[in-house]
């Protein structure tokens, strides 16, 4: 029953009226040392600390991460949602995908997802971060309405920085406007 009501709300979301009042998010301010960036000085007056070598961050040991296999049959094996130009509206065809992943999160209390929004390369890189973020937030809100716990989803954006397909035409762009569903612990 509750599910049915959610489905109605989701339908409204899918239709594009995605302006949900935002929820207060927990502030996450980890100060773990960097893993991969190696700063260096313009003028080598001062020795730069080798952050690359001083890796003390590591990953959590609380059991192995929980994720459905990437080749799972059906919509659970589908991890990418594509979008129209300058749009964050979730097309109807992706509803089974969101239902499957929301269902997995509900059934597995330790599972966490990162929803990674992307944009095509056209226009401003910073504005494209915001566009990718809106897509990721749109997926997060839809999955929340389908019963997934908000605190186990993080919506982030890569903007135009990580295209799935190289190329400078609509064929490439349409594959790059996307949200990728990535479970914690996956590459």
């Amino acid at each position: 029953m509750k599910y049915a009501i959610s489905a109605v709300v989701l339908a409204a979301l899918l239709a594009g009226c995605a302006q949900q009042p935002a929820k207060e998010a927990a502030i996450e301010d980890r100060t773990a040392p960097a893993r991969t960036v190696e700063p260096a000085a313009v003028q080598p007056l001062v020795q730069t600390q080798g952050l690359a070598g001083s890796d003390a961050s590591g990953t959590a040991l609380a059991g192995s991460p929980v994720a459905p296999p990437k080749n799972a049959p059906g919509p659970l094996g589908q991890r990418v949602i594509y979008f129209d130009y300058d749009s964050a509206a979730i097309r109807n065809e992706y509803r089974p995908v969101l239902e499957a992943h929301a269902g997995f999160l509900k059934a597995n209390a330790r599972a966490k997802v990162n929803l990674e929004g992307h944009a095509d390369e056209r226009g401003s890189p910073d504005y494209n971060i915001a566009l990718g973020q809106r897509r990721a937030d749109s997926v997060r809100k839809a999955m929340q309405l389908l019963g997934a716990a908000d605190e186990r989803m993080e919506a982030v954006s890569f903007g135009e920085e990580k295209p799935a397909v190289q190329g400078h035409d609509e064929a490439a762009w349409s594959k790059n406007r996307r949200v990728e569903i990535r479970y914690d612990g996956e590459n």
Partner: protein
Amino acid sequence: MVIRIVARCIVLCLALLAVPAGASMTIEIVGGGANRIPIAVVPFEAPAGALNPAEVIGADLQRSGLFRLIDSQDVRPLPSEPQQVSFPVWRGRGSDALVIGQVIAQAGNRYEVRFRLFDVVKGQQLLGMSYTVPAQNLRLVAHKIADAVYEKLTGEPGVFSTRIAYVLKRGGRFELQVADVDGHNAVTIAASPEPLMSPAWSPDGSRLAYVSFEDKKPVVYVQNIFDGKRRAVARFRGSNSAPAWSPDGRRLAVVLSKDASSQIYLIDLEGGAPQRLMASSGLDTEPAFSPDGRWLYFTSDRGGSPQIYRVPVEGGAAQRLTFEGGYNVSPALAPDGRTMAYLHRRDGRFLVAVMDLTSGQSRVLTDTDHDESPSFAPNGRMILYATRVGNQGMLATVSVDGQVKQRLSQSGDLREPAWAPLRSQ
């Protein structure tokens, strides 16, 4: 003949040595000013093996598009001191101005560099200066001399001794580099297999704020370019992007998605919680302070399409500035605060435009197709931006009058340029 080839090899080798970060940048001038000042820059009297400042000075002035170099090769004897200058010779060659100088070796691998600038028509000295520097700063002194000559003859500060920051993507790796504005002395200050973007200079030129994806999400860092030390200044839930410095260097405007999708916040670098500037119905991003610190310019799609707005930093109503076309983004303010550069979409092309903020008049400056990330030179005369030619990402500059254009390229994709403020050292 053999000697000439050897000499050329030495010059090449020196050029390679000067670029520790690898392949050097190529600068191509694709347009010049209409009225270029004819100037002769005579090779300085210099010890063999030392960089001759005249080469750097001449290249700087020529690249600005405002000067035309007069050949001095066959003038004998080449003057290096005032009493050796014969003005009729230089008038006869059509030169309006003349630069001469000397490099004198001193103890401890230091050099004294002297130069004089003459008005050839009047036969008068306009400038004369002496600098004493360690050997590795000869190139910087040459840029400083070019700055002084430029300022004396055009009335505006030169920017040849300034730096730029940009992101170089090569071999699947992202490098945040800082280089002299002529592409020399490029140094990688951060390298990552994940994207780096949005470098922004602190007003004193000592630090860069930028965005790194090393945690599989955008996080804003501030890094000191001299000692390489850095810290995360915005690492909140969701995305952290688009840093911009306040003119006093004490605050950053950033875009966070922790409360709602892409909103602008102010962060005090001394500490404290981020302060949300507005509650926008749309997405807000690309904050940029006015040079007087009173306004924050930004991009928002609150009106249905991305347009540029501004809002008083101390609070108040936002005001829309762009109306022409459905895509106007990436505001950048000139140092005098009177002109705004931005990105404008027209017929599917992304072009750099400028708006006179007093009159509201705007004009497109570029004729490339895929422009991004405009940034003003600290003298306000040029705009540096990223563009793409074929499949190659490169940097380009255009003068605010649209006359002088250059392209800067190197192997790999160049993106996200930011022009540093004037150096004091």
